[in-house]
Every structure is written in structure tokens, then in C-alpha cells.
């Protein structure tokens, strides 16, 4: 009995080793095939389109080299879009990082009413972005803005000439930045909480034994340990704000006078609205090297500052 049972077991082990070599790729291949087909191929197609003068209705066009890229670069609308994309991304993420790290430090502790407060804080992230932006369209309404009503009743603004949040170029930039920061703050907070939660309790105990408390502990122990995952939060934040189209599309459509144009919005208007597929693809592709660079830098940074 013993030997009879022992033999097939050993054989099975060996089968398993054989299996491991094939099972891994077999389990992975559907995902990889799908990603190559639906992300890789369109990306390649997009690069091809950007080098042609293709228009809506066809997938091919004459090869015109880098003309789309150079003509966009000298287009003032593109310039504004490029600048705005950077401004929105930097401003919104500055707010997000500061807000999220403060919130995360408090939300990681248990306290009464935490569940409800956390629910309120998560709302902006859970709500579909196109829908919550419609909410802001109403909040920033030219006639019935609640912000203006409050400001008027506090006599902070001129009753007959209240700020036009979406009609004035500078204010519109501020409004869009606000919506981006508002929407992504909860998500960044959650990632920061994940970072804090992964700090082993021994580290905190050791810090206490060494006499590190309060701000000292925050500066020398918690923040360095939190840095890698904070970097990931910023990475998500940058990618989501730089590539988002819903907020700008709904709030201003790039207006007034293209002053709040962003690269995604401009690519949509050029590629779908005006039907210049090639030019649209080129605009969108301007994002790619920038995003790739940011991503690689941040991942390298996250790995380097990882203390463990």
C-alpha cells in the first residue's frame, strides 16, 4: 500500500512541475491577448494615424510625416491646451496631495462616526464623474450659483456683477481645478490610508520606545515610510487629471474662447468634432511621452524611497 501510494504522488509532483511551466502562460494569455488587441493595436493605429492626413470615414490617409505634430505645435489653441493641461494637473495634484495626507492621518484612527464621515468623503470618488460635474455646472451657474448667493449675502461680491465662474477665463480655470481636486481627493486619501496601514506596528512601537512622538515621529518615521505609496497616489492623480475630458467637456467645452482647452478636449474636438483623425491622434499622442516619463520617474522614485 505504502509504495503504491507513494509512486503516483511523486509522479503527480512531477506533472505539476511540468504544469507550472505551461499553466502560467496558459492562465495569463487571455489577458495578454486582449490587452494587445484592445490597447496595443489601437495605440499603434493611433501612431499611424497621427502620421497621415486621415479624416473621419476612413482609416487610411496619405503619409505626411510629422506635419500633424508641427502644425499643431504652432496652433495657438493647441498651445493653450498644452499649457492648461499642465496647469490643471499641477495645481489640482498639489491640493490633492496635501489634503489627502492630512485626511489619511486622521481617518486611519478609529473614532465614533467614522463610517458616516468616510461615506461623505468617498462620495465625490464614487459618483460617476460626468454626473457630479453636472452638479458643479449648477453650483457655478451664471445666474443661480449658490457660491455667488453666499458671497453676495456676505457682501463679498458685487450684487449686480457677480463672478462668472465659467464665463471668465481665469475663474473657469480655477473652477475646473477645483472640480479635479474635489473628485480625486478621496481616491488619493484611500491610497494614503493604504500606505499608512502597511506600516508595521513594530515600527510605531520602536519609534515610541526611542522617544519619538508627535511631529517628530511624523517627520522621521511616518512620512518616509509613506512616501512610496504617496508617489503612487500622485501618479494616479496626474494621469487622471491630465487625461480627463469629462470635466472640461461638461463645464466649459474648452471655452470661453478656447481659454480652458485641454489636450484631451482639443483632441476630441479635432478628431471627432471636425473629423481630422490624423491631427486628433497627434494631439492625443503629445500626452504619451509626457505621461510615460512621469510614470517611469515616479515608479523609480517609489522604489528608491522604499525603506524596507
Amino acid at each position, binding site marked *: 500500500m505504502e509504495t503504491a501510494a507513494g509512486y503516483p504522488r511523486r509522479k503527480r509532483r512531477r506533472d*505539476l512541475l511540468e504544469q507550472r511551466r505551461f*499553466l*502560467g502562460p*496558459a*492562465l*495569463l494569455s*487571455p*489577458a495578454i491577448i*486582449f*490587452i494587445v488587441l*484592445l*490597447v496595443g493595436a*489601437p*495605440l499603434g*493605429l*493611433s501612431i499611424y*494615424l497621427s502620421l497621415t492626413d486621415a479624416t473621419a470615414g476612413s*482609416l487610411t490617409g496619405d503619409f505626411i510625416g510629422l506635419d500633424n505634430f508641427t502644425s499643431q505645435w504652432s496652433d495657438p489653441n493647441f498651445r493653450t491646451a498644452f499649457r492648461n493641461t499642465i496647469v490643471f494637473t499641477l495645481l489640482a495634484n498639489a491640493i490633492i496631495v496635501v489634503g489627502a495626507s492630512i*485626511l489619511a492621518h*486622521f481617518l486611519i484612527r478609529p*473614532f*465614533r462616526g467614522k463610517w458616516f*464621515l*468616510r*461615506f*461623505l*468623503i*468617498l*462620495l465625490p*470618488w*464614487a*459618483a*460617476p*464623474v460626468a*454626473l*457630479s460635474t*453636472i*452638479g458643479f455646472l*449648477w*453650483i457655478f451657474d451664471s*445666474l*443661480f450659483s*449658490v457660491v455667488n448667493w453666499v458671497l453676495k449675502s456676505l457682501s463679498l461680491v458685487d450684487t449686480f456683477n457677480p463672478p462668472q465662474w465659467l464665463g471668465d477665463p481665469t475663474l473657469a480655470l480655477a473652477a475646473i481645478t477645483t472640480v479635479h481636486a*474635489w473628485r480625486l481627493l478621496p481616491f488619493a486619501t*484611500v*491610497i494614503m490610508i493604504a500606505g499608512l*496601514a502597511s506600516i508595521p506596528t513594530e515600527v510605531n512601537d520602536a519609534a515610541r520606545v526611542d522617544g519619538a512622538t508627535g511631529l517628530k515621529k511624523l517627520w522621521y518615521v511616518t512620512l518616509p515610510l509613506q512616501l512610496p505609496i504617496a508617489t503612487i497616489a500622485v501618479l*494616479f492623480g496626474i494621469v487622471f487629471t491630465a*487625461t480627463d*475630458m*469629462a470635466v472640461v467637456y461638461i463645464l466649459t467645452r474648452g471655452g470661453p474662447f478656447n481659454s480652458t482647452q485641454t489636450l*484631451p478636449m482639443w483632441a*476630441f474636438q479635432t*478628431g*471627432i468634432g471636425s473629423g481630422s*483623425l490624423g491631427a486628433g*491622434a497627434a494631439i*492625443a*499622442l503629445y500626452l504619451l511621452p509626457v505621461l510615460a516619463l512621469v*510614470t517611469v520617474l515616479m515608479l523609480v522614485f517609489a522604489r528608491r524611497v522604499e525603506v524596507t
Partner: protein
Amino acid sequence: MPSRRTRENLLTYMVVGPFAIVLAFPFYWMLWTALKTEGDLYNTKNNPFGFTQGSPTLANVRFLFEQTDYLRWLGNTALVGATVVIFTLLVSLPAGYALARLSGRWGQSLGVGIFLVYLVPPTLLFLPLSRLIAELGLQDSLWSLILVYPSFTIPFATWLLMGFFKSIPRELEDAALVDGASRVRSLLHVVFPISLPGILTVVIFSFSLCANEFVYALAFITNSSSKTISTGIYTELIRGDVFFWGALMAATLIPSIPLALLYNTFLDRFIAGFTGGAFR
């Protein structure tokens, strides 16, 4: 002198409270607007925080359900979301498991690679994909969204599931293997049941990614009956200069609240998946 604990709690409320108020205010405002009559809404003399002239009313909600395609959009969103989630799980469960367990060091790099794919935004892909959808004759069909949405749900779900699977002790599985179960059997009977909370988390977050999507839905679908909530509300309830504000706000609030409740319930799981070896 209050105790240290009381002081800490007080500080927590003083910091978290204002954040919660600012972040939740737009939703409070949606609720108030949704409950108002047109007369109340469009009278600048009224205090917008109070109710007069027939408010509060449910007329806006009734209008939304009876005279618009709102239910249809909700249904479409649910249908697209559910189909995409099922497909995503079929592809991502094996892939996430393989990345966590089977493939050693190059699995690590592949994991990061898949995470990076998630960061390739729709903004880069919608132009070629919209041509592809046109070639396939799928414009104005929900199938276009069902086909394309896995391009972001699969990377996201695979990566998150990889984190969950890494956090399951290997010994549990080895025990099943030693007992003579095949690897596939141990997957189905040991690994997946333990990971159920993680899988549910992935279901919820993938579904909400679909409900959230805007660019593809806007580029691919133009007829009202095939729209999802993400685009339907904006394109159909705003007619030129006419904004149905009450109905718009009700339409926005209705899907947001249950989604936020789900998020809050599954948040700790989500955090566990995030820290479960996804970045180490």
C-alpha cells in the same frame, strides 16, 4: 483637563469634519435642487437653502422616470457593467493568480507592466477605437462599450487580484495540492472561495469604472435609447439652453448614493488589495 484620547478625537473631528462638509456639499446641493419646483429654483429672491413656492416636491423625480429615458440609461449601464464585469473576471482571475503565484520574477515585471496599461487613458485610444467600432458596424450599439471597456477593467482587475492572491498564505494551497488535488481544483475549491471578498471588491470597482466612463460612451453612442447614465443625462436632459436642473440633479444623485455606500463597505478590502504586495 480632558484626557489625551478626548483631545485626539476632538482634533480628528475638527479636521475631518470640514473636509467631509466640503466634499459632500455638492451632493447636499443636488438633493436640495432636486426637491425644488421651477418657481422656487428660478426666483433669485428666494433663499436657496430653504424651500418655498411648492417645494419640496418629488415632481422632478417623477418627470425623470416618466418622461425621459432615464430608466433605460440605468438599465443600459447595469447591462454593460454586468457583462463587462463577468468577462473581466473570466480573464483576470486566472491572470491575477498566475502573476501572483506561478511566474516568478518576470511575473513581477509583467505585473507592473499590466498596471502601466491601466494608465493608458481612453483619450489616447478613442480615435482609433471609434474607427474600429465604425468598421465593425457597432456604432450606437451597447456592444461597442462591452467590447472596449475591458481594455481598462482587465488591467485594473488583474493587478488588484494579483495583490489579493499574494496575500493568501501559500501553505493553504500547498496543503490542498499535497492532499492530491490538482492545481486547477485547488484553485476552484481553496483559493477562489477564500478570495471571495477580494473578488467582490474587484466586481464593485470594475463596475463603477464602467459606470464612470465618459469618452467612449460619448464617441460611440449617439441615439438616446442606447445611452448610459454617464452621457445620457448630460446630452438628453440639457436641450440647448434649457436645463432641467431639478431632474438633472435627481438623476445625478440616484446612482451616486448606492455606489458610495458600496465603496464605503468594501473600502477596507480595497485597501488590503492595494497593499497586498501589489507594489513590492
